[in-house]
């Protein structure tokens, strides 16, 4: 168990360093490290501190948020198919973010962007919990997710198509597939508090989610306050996924793959799957973001494309195993 966490931590550190050192400019490693820690305003220092550092930090933060949210939603619904992207939380957060940007709120008041994304995410999580019921059956969960995703996606496209800005319409693909290109330390600072608060809220759910392994009745009789747990889950997922989506667009499948791959390695207890999935998600997004820069450095290949290539087969496999168990 400790070995799994140590391995994951080392992997994240390694990928974080790689993310800092890999880029289209092909800077020498020693110069890059030197510039990052000791530079004084020359071009390479600017590249390291203002371009690569925020990108690598956001990859960790966004990946951890998505992995953790996926694990928490799965723990609560006791269904390995629950994932913020698939059930429409990311899509609704993107709608909130797009509304904040296009209405000019985000320009007038920077916090409006993450707050609006959080609002969109809250709406989706509440709707999913209402539609899927206390124990989300796979079918209702996925159907409700499809409906919410489609609606949010359509509204996002509508808002962007109606924008007076000709670039807005071409950004539909960013909001649907996500990218970390050209983000800055301002973005890091803007979303970090939301992600930190959401992460604390979700990690605190470990005990309750463990108890929920035995069902709602057993968990309540073990002294778990289910109403409070549900509230913390909604706020935690909305804060982390909302903040992640506000700066990186919707990136699907991270919250599905990370818990799925790591569950058995950490003994399947939700309280252990939560932190493991956060680390796993961070590693996944870091790796994907390195890959998009290596595959097509000048094209801004979308992160979601790459992750879906890995994630969708996982999703199909999960559906197959669930069908066998039914």
């Amino acid at each position, binding site marked *: 168990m400790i070995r799994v966490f140590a391995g994951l931590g080392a992997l994240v550190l390694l990928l974080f360093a790689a993310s800092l050192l890999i880029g289209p400019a092909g800077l020498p490693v020693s110069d890059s490290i030197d510039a990052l820690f000791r530079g004084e305003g020359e071009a390479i220092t600017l590249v390291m501190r203002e371009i690569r550092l925020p990108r690598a930090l956001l990859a960790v933060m966004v990946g951890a948020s998505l992995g953790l949210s996926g694990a928490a939603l799965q723990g609560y619904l*006791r269904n390995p198919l629950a994932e913020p992207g698939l059930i429409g939380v990311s899509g609704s957060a993107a709608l909130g973010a797009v509304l904040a940007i296009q209405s000019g709120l985000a320009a007038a008041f920077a916090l409006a962007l993450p707050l609006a994304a959080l609002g969109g995410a809250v709406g989706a999580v509440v709707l999913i919990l209402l539609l899927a019921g206390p124990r989300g059956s796979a079918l209702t969960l996925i159907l409700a997710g499809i409906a919410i995703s489609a609606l949010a996606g359509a509204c996002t496209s509508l808002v962007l198509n109606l924008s007076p800005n000709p670039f807005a319409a071409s950004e539909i693909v960013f909001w649907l597939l996500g990218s970390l290109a050209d983000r800055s330390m301002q973005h890091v600072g803007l979303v970090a508090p939301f992600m930190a608060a959401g992460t604390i809220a979700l990690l605190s759910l470990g005990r309750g989610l463990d108890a929920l*392994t*035995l069902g709602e*009745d057993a968990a*309540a009789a*073990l*002294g778990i306050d289910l109403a409070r747990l549900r509230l913390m889950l909604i706020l935690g997922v909305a804060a982390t996924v909302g903040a992640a989506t506000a700066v990186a667009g919707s990136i699907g499948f991270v919250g599905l793959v990370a818990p799925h791959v790591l*569950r*058995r390695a950490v*003994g399947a207890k939700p309280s252990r799957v939560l932190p493991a999935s956060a680390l796993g998600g961070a590693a996944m997004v870091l790796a994907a973001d390195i890959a998009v820069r290596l595959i097509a450095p000048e094209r801004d290949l979308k992160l979601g494309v790459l992750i879906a290539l890995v994630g969708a087969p996982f999703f199909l496999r999960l559906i197959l195993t669930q069908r066998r168990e039914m």
Partner: protein
Amino acid sequence: MSLLTLTDLKSFRRERMVLNGISLHIAAGEVVGLIGPNGAGKTTLMRAALGLIPFSGNSSLMQMVPRLRARHVAWLPQSREIAWPISVEALVALGRLPHGDTDPAPVTAALHRMDLEALRHRPATELSGGEQARVLIARTLAQQAPLLMADEPVAGLDPAHQIATMQVLGDLARGGHGVLVSIHDLGLAVRHCTRLIALDQGRIAADGPPREVLTPALLHRVFGITAHFEDTPQGPIFQPLSTV
């Protein structure tokens, strides 16, 4: 010492009265069998007593804050839900949640008592239904609560494990615990319960020692059956014979 006191408990579901004025005590040292036909309100009674569903009247359990209540009463629901492939040992250790400790002694004792030591590292989801039932009972034992409420704990077990499970409940009672167990198998109930409470349409139809509760009149009225009931050197034997 009374471990559970219910006073005039009433519960409605969709405007239908499911419990209609239930009052009872459970004391330490008792194994109380809750019997009655399907729909009599056995599960509802236990869930209401635990505060899991809305009710009117009084349950002594509701005077405690949730965490203390969880140390006072262990609840084994009928649905044997195990959502994740966690190990048997980890599942049983969930019983320690209300105590907030990771004391291995009660967990080991519970595993031993339910004959699960060989399975302790196996993922609980990969066990047979009967093995899972024993694991879930072991979890309630690890909780070390004075009162145990179990909904149909022996349903689906093979005869040996049915008997073993009822003996565990008896041992608990002899060790100073109180047990309230709903059960359909009247033969097992008669042999292992110190007292039976017969529910009929949300009311208590009879409450007392098995011999006094399972009268031909009650069996006819509540269960619609006739039965053979005999005290033997091997203990009481109860066998339903026919429907009426």
